């Protein structure tokens, strides 16, 4: 959308609103296409369209941001977001009192995450950082538990590099000590035959399997290339893993006096001790050979370049970013369109993630109204909560978001997966029609008879018991603000449509609307009607699905 059109659109939207004609449900109805823009071919963005876009591109639509998108258009909104500075976790944590233990430190880290994703201006950057944190995974479940600041530093690196070039991101990820420790590249040393010691293969394996190229050769549209025997073609074999394991030797914390006396300084990239680096020849991907005698730094740069240049990276990363933001089952053409921008952003740059993200969000498959019942995705459980909290401006009196164990209720929390394989796999297909259609639904991997109830129960708590009209408040409890809803609660139809606009962009099914109204009618108190309306919609599979 052209920025110059913005004033015209604003005027036309105002007109549409004012001549909507007193009907309370008018605000959720898409305005007629074409607008009043005098010769403009750009359609006016409806509330529903802006809402859907913001569910893809942010941690949840707010009335302000919906209006903003409708005002300036999708592309201009993205362009603004690409320029937003990153909201960081570490500076925030540094300003907090020193935590008494690691658990408190980890809770502070989650607080920093909530602060940024709920209130940060850099919504798209934070959203992409979260997606990256589920592709290039580290976790506090294991050997990073005692290092919340080091983990925050890693997350900040993801946020800072969310729109950077993929090769720079990969190098940053590789050399950040939290990753080094999590996948044991930190302290990895050259072989010692006499002691049967060989380089650790952990990072070598996962950087290829999960962070870059995957297991089998792909076309640019994400489809698997089959060999003549109809079997997939592996991207690498054990020898290649061992070669990369030799590459990733000799690195430890910055500031360490010797290789075996780690400094535990997490905030600086790892440094190399050449005498612990294997100097042999290394046979990498695509017949690339690193000559013997190179430094640890030169080997690392060449090896990461070797990975970044692999033909699989564009479709492998593009598909996962599409899945995190837009749809579980992108068409091959959609993946290919994004891959092509990954390969070359138009200026000859490979891996420009800002351009990739923009392409993902502006693609017709992301923007056109969904026509198939297989489109979209299940929203990640934790993002259902952030959507509600953003829509209803949730906060605590102490300005903190102290939520120690989100994973208990949502089966996920930032940087808290059980393993480097994340909370769910991109290829997960549940039993039933999805699997039978050959489709996937990654978020269904953490959806079962227990977790679906636990999500629902937390939403019940956060809505029924933690809202602004509660009489006796706790200083550290997070409350949603329902004052705007209370103001219209004596008109139940207006209220339900208003809540539906906040949570669903107005796309409320007749059935859900009727059941919600019926439940609201049971309450005498306005407050009861409000929270009932919010709960009924928030607990619905409709809200859990991003079409």
């Amino acid at each position, binding site marked *: 959308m052209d920025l110059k059109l913005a004033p015209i659109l604003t005027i036309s939207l105002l007109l549409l609103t004012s001549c909507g004609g007193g009907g309370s449900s008018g605000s959720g109805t898409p305005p007629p296409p074409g607008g009043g823009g005098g010769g403009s071919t750009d359609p006016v963005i409806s509330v529903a369209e802006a809402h859907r876009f913001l569910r893809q591109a942010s941690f949840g639509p707010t009335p302000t941001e919906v209006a903003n998108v409708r005002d300036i258009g999708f592309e201009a909104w993205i362009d603004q977001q690409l320029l937003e500075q990153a909201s960081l976790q570490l500076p925030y944590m540094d300003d907090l009192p020193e935590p008494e233990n690691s658990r408190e430190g980890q809770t502070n880290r989650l607080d920093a995450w909530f602060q940024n994703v709920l209130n940060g201006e850099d919504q798209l950057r934070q959203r992409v950082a979260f997606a990256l944190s589920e592709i290039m995974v580290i976790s506090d479940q294991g050997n990073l538990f005692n290092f919340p600041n080091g983990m925050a530093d890693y997350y900040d690196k993801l946020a800072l590099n969310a729109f950077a070039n993929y090769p720079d991101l990969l190098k940053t990820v590789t050399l950040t000590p939290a990753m080094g420790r999590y996948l*044991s590249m930190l302290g990895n040393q050259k072989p010692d035959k006499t002691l049967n*010691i060989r380089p650790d293969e952990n990072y070598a394996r996962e950087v290829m399997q999960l962070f870059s190229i995957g*297991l089998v050769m792909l076309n640019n549209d994400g489809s698997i290339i089959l060999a003549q025997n109809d079997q*997939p073609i592996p991207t690498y074999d054990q020898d290649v893993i061992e070669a990369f394991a030799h590459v990733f030797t000799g690195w430890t914390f910055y500031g360490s006096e010797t290789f075996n006396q780690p400094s535990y300084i997490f905030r600086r990239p790892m440094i190399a001790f050449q005498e612990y680096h294997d100097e042999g020849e290394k046979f990498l991907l695509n017949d690339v050979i690193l000559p013997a005698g190179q430094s640890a730094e030169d080997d690392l740069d060449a090896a990461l370049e070797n990975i970044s240049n692999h033909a699989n990276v564009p479709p492998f990363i593009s598909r996962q970013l599409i899945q995190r933001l837009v749809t579980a089952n992108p068409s091959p053409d959609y993946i290919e369109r994004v891959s092509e921008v990954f390969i070359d952003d138009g200026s000859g740059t490979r891996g420009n993630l800002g351009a990739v993200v923009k392409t993902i969000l502006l693609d017709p498959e992301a923007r056109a109204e969904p026509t198939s019942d297989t*489109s979209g995705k299940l929203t990640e459980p934790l993002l259902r909560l952030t959507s509600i909290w953003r829509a209803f401006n949730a906060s605590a009196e102490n300005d903190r978001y102290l939520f120690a164990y989100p994973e208990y209720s949502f089966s996920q929390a930032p940087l808290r997966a*059980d393993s480097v394989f994340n909370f769910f796999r991109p290829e997960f297909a549940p039993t039933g029609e999805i699997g039978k259609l050959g489709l996937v639904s990654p978020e269904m991997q953490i959806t079962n008879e227990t977790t679906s*109830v636990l999500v629902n129960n937390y939403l019940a*708590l956060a809505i029924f018991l933690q809202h602004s009209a509660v009489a006796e408040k706790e200083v550290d409890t997070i409350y949603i603000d329902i004052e705007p809803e209370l103001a219209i609660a004596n008109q139940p139809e207006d209220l339900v449509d208003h809540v539906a606009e906040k949570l669903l962009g107005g796309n409320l099914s007749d059935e859900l609307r009727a059941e919600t109204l019926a*439940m609201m009618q049971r309450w005498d108190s306005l407050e009861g009607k409000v929270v009932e309306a919010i709960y009924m919609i928030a607990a619905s599979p*409709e809200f859990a699905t991003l079409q």
Partner: protein
Amino acid sequence: MIPSARSADFSDYKCLVNVFLLGGNDSFNMLVPRSDAEYSIYAASRQNLAIPQEDLLPISPLNSDGALYGFHPMATGLQGLFETGDLAIVSNVGPLLEPTSKDDYLNGNATLPPQLFSHNNQQNQWQSLRGTSALSTGWAGRIADLLAEDLSGQLLPTNISTSGNSRFQSGDTSSPYTVNNSGASSYAAFRRAAEYGPERRAAFEQLLANGYGNIHSRALAEVHTRSLQYADLINEALTLVPELNTPFPETRLGRRLRIVARLLAVKDEFEVNRQIFYITTGGFDTHDTQNQDQPDLLQDLGDCMQAFQTAMAEIGLENQVTSFTQSDFGRTLSSNGDGTDHGWGAHQLVAGGAVMGRQIYGTMPVLEIDGPDDVAGGRIIPTQSADQYAATLATWFGVPESALNEIAPSLPAFNLRNLGFMT
């Protein structure tokens, strides 16, 4: 078409409990040769990761290959179970699609399971036994599909998980049901104590029944429907046996095994004749600090498996419930300084009164780097397949011989269709 299973009689009760050790258990430090000749080979391979010979917990198998063996010093529970005859060791099992020698492997003469040494692929292989096929179901899921008609009177799904969704329990037509550590999760907003709880539940159920115009919504709605369908039955039954006398370790695995034991104690309320449980426990991917981490892991595993067997005796099901381990893979004999890497073959454990215990099944590998069983870098080639292992358990469970190849697709490639560790 799966052959009819009607020939078997399912009026008795049998139960399988899969204890999946996530990450790849280093079983060559769980069970270690104790006799001098074999120990010295092991110690030379394992170097600083070797368990001291004198610390090993001795076992006295009823069968012998001439060598002596012992468990890891912290695995007292495993030693106890083995010595009382309630535990069998199945030696050097792993994913194989056909009998495969070291030469076959090195010369590319054998069809191998895809992506050996990769965590999720090998977990999937153990759980699905798919080989190079596109099979998306797990072998417990296929058993549930196969026996669906015979077990149609059961009030709960045949497959129950304490650990969420798995390939293992995914069927073509059957779905597992997931419990939490205290039973079934119930909706706070639908309780009688909640204002308008029953009415809200009715509204929610009506909406679920109406259906949804999107596959993801429908998948979620199906899960909600199952939650509502089974939660009351499970939780009301559990009130009959609030606690067992047998104490369980307060660990993730202990709590998960305890709820399985409690569900088994009230199994009659569910009118079940065949059940399969899936339990995971993690932390076994010991790339780093193995000497610090592995003792706790093996102590927990032993203590938990022993507690579970004791609990089964307490409720009189010790001969009807069989627990068994699976894990991604074994680990390399070589080290990376203070840990080990992804291997292939590994020992597995089978416990219960129906197990022909206190025996080691299969040939123990030579734990020598570059030795006859090492395909490269200390990765031990399995001599028994995960398919044979599963088929042995499935046969005991009541899967007829005619249907075994559906459960374990690579089984026809092997002469031995039953490893003999079950009665």
